[in-house]
């Protein structure tokens, strides 16, 4: 299964619920397209929920970074919530854990945008 992306609003925050695999190919490009779409439509507060993401490879990590730079470059914020231990480990290995604002709880993550 590739990645499935569902977008919803919580207050003025856009939450992207991702499910499946974010890997080179369809998964990574779908993710990239969605982030760019949101950034170009003026969304400034984006919370990426990775709770249902079962797998992410280096290309997927690259897309997270690219999404982060796209959104912050437009003056917005992109934060992460719901990371599995494996994804947390990947962000630790790549030293990206401190680059992203990572939350365990969605409500707290949404509040942090205020």
């Amino acid at each position: 299964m590739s990645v499935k992306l569902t977008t919803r609003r919580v207050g003025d925050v856009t939450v992207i619920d991702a499910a499946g695999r974010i890997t080179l190919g369809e998964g990574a490009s779908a993710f990239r397209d969605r982030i760019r779409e949101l950034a170009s439509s003026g969304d400034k507060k984006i919370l990426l929920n990775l709770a249902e993401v079962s797998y992410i490879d280096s290309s997927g990590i690259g897309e997270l970074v690219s999404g982060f730079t796209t959104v912050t470059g437009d003056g917005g914020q992109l934060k992460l919530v719901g990371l599995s231990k494996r994804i947390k480990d990947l962000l630790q290995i790549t030293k990206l854990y401190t680059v992203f604002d990572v939350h365990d709880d969605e409500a707290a993550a949404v509040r942090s945008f205020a």
Partner: protein
Amino acid sequence: MQLSRAARDIDNMEKIQTLLDSTLESVDKAEALVMREAGKLGFDEDDQHGIGMAVRECMVNAVVHGNRYNKKKHVHLEIVTDKEIAVTIGDEGEGFDMSMLPDPTAPENLLRQSGRGLLLIRAFMDDFDMHPRPGGGTEVRLVKKVPGA
């Protein structure tokens, strides 16, 4: 995908060799095959996941950067299992100089989109070696020892 399997009863070593097309489907096939062999060898789920990811990263390098999706070129996969799993992946590309790669964890490179594959491979495997492949291209060898073996 055609598999060639050879077993030696004396030392329980088993070898699988296969030739894969230069496609992303081959990346998935190689990952699944190696994870299956790692599971049979007794690696736990986390180790299987890490080994699978290391193989995925090497296969992507071989298919995308080595063979550049060229239909006439193949990826050579060999899996040897004993008290460890040793995976060799060779491409038929132009060759690759690992020393040219910037450190992806250096502050100035943290926000680069690519270049983290080798870092992940090293994180998940016990040994990693990259060298020119006899006959052209690049070959990598990944080894993970079975815990307690």
